[in-house]
């Protein structure tokens, strides 16, 4: 049983690591801020999955509830940040007609100083 859980921990831990990579790719590859926000959430849940998987590595001493509690906190914190970012993105789009940062627009000025 413990061996099975250890395999599972390694499997989901690796899955989490891969999700972090996928998320970073999306974060870097897109200029659209909502796409970046999606990628941010993918990275976040990848880290959480990694965290939860490592919680199983000492399963011989019992299931560790602390990572689970911290992950729930992390999910709520990530949601708060996402909600604020979504509101800012919509407002930016309302004011400027774009959902990108000024320097990411084709032909936009870098640095954002005008």
């Amino acid at each position, binding site marked *: 049983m413990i061996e099975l859980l250890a395999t599972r921990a390694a499997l989901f831990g690796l899955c989490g690591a891969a999700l972090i990579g996928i998320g970073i790719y999306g974060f870097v590859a897109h200029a659209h801020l909502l796409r970046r926000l999606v990628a941010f959430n993918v990275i976040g849940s990848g*880290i959480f999955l990694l965290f939860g998987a490592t919680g199983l590595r000492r399963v011989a001493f019992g299931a560790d509830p602390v990572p689970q509690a911290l992950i729930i906190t992390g999910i709520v914190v990530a949601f708060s940040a996402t909600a604020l970012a979504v509101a800012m993105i919509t407002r*930016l789009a309302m004011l400027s007609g774009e959902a990108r940062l000024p320097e990411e627009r084709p032909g936009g000025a870098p640095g*954002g100083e005008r």
Partner: protein
Amino acid sequence: MGPLSGQGTIWLALLIAAPLAAALLSVVSGRYARPVALASIALMLSLSGILVTLVAQGPLRIAVGGWSAPLGIALAADGLSAGFVAVTAVVMGIVMLSALPQFAPRGDGETGESRAGYAFWPLAFFLWAALNAIFLSGDLFNLYVALELLTLAAIGLVAIEGKAETIAAALRYALFALFGSLAYLLGAVFLYAAYGTLDMALLAEIAEADGATIAAGALMTAGLAAKTALFPFHAWLPPAHSGAPAPASAILSGLVPKASFYIAVRLWFDVLPGAAGEIMPVVLGALGTLAIVYGSLLAMRQERLKLIVAYSTVAQIGYLFLIFPLAGGSADPQPWAAGAWTGAMFHAFSHAAAKASMFLSAGLFLHAVGHDRIDGLKGIARHMPMTAFAFALASVTLMGLPPSGGFTAKYLLLTASFAGGQEIWSAAMILGGLMAALYLFRPLGRAFSRAGEGAARPAPVSRLLQLAPLALACLSILIGIASAGPYDFLQIGRPVSAEEGLE
């Protein structure tokens, strides 16, 4: 670390609970901003004073909820924490007092609220609570939550003007800061996976200098550097800090980056003292040097006062990171390390006061002239001598001239670099001081010159408001004049990694 005692429980609790309570009150109604702000500022100043007197007798450590680590979260206060809490209280107090007229609850609705006049107060109080929570925390995950609290409140303050540019600046800041949080979190997860605890004091006892630990520390440091706007993660800072209203800029530039820097210092000097190795401190020092040069160069090229001040922050943050090569970098305690470590902290404190003062001055100039292009500042010293004098005093600190706090900081850092045979860093500091003189002379020279013909008469600015930047500038000088007391105070509860001082 310190003695495990319940002593000071109520004061540590209040330092976090009081600003939270003030923030909750100002969420309920924006009408009572003035009394709530006045009462809480007075309370917070006294609480910080009490903390300083308590810590003077020895470091404090309490177990929140009565659950001692590793199960529970510890709050800890030593000289460094108390120093940051006290500087935060003075800077926040003065800045919030000076914000009262600008963010007065006027509005025409039946609730007597206006949008920015409402939002500023809860955001500022939440930010204050987050800063204290960071300076007093003894747990790596708790620091993550407090750091997110700080970041979201700071993002809200950057965006508070509600214009397209400021919202774009806030979003750019959010991208860097949230990415930084994730890197920090990933590092903390690795430390928990390796050691089964997040308590900093316990980790300090059991952490080893193996690959995984160093990688975890590096991830956390990268995340913190992004939040501190260390070169090359600085791009978000100038538009964010120059676009916000002056009181918000003062808080954002003076205090917020110090919090993530503080965590990085705690991480390498307290939690993982033996793990830094040879390369990491040099990399951080090199990035700091690049930040000094690059930030100063760009500050010289700006035409708007707030942008000059904001790019100056990019440069000044660079000095902070010289702490790693000068005070760390070796597992054995070096005799000069205490001087370098304390010098960096002096720099953090005096820059907090000086930069807050500069942004408040810039805000007053902007109010008087209607814009902040430095060409418009010609002869302003005649109309606003107090503010111009404050700006000059704060500049003295940033240039590192005696007798300012900036001078003491640079003196300590320079002595350490010579004593340790690391003269190369002293070159960066001296160059940085010269460049600061150059970029600050442009606005100063105009302000103290004679007004040109036909210059528009500036709008009057209240004397009381002009007192705020002056008080902060005086504080930044005072830190240098009365440096012996703070120096000894900062040594209280210092980790062994740099116990032996120069004295």
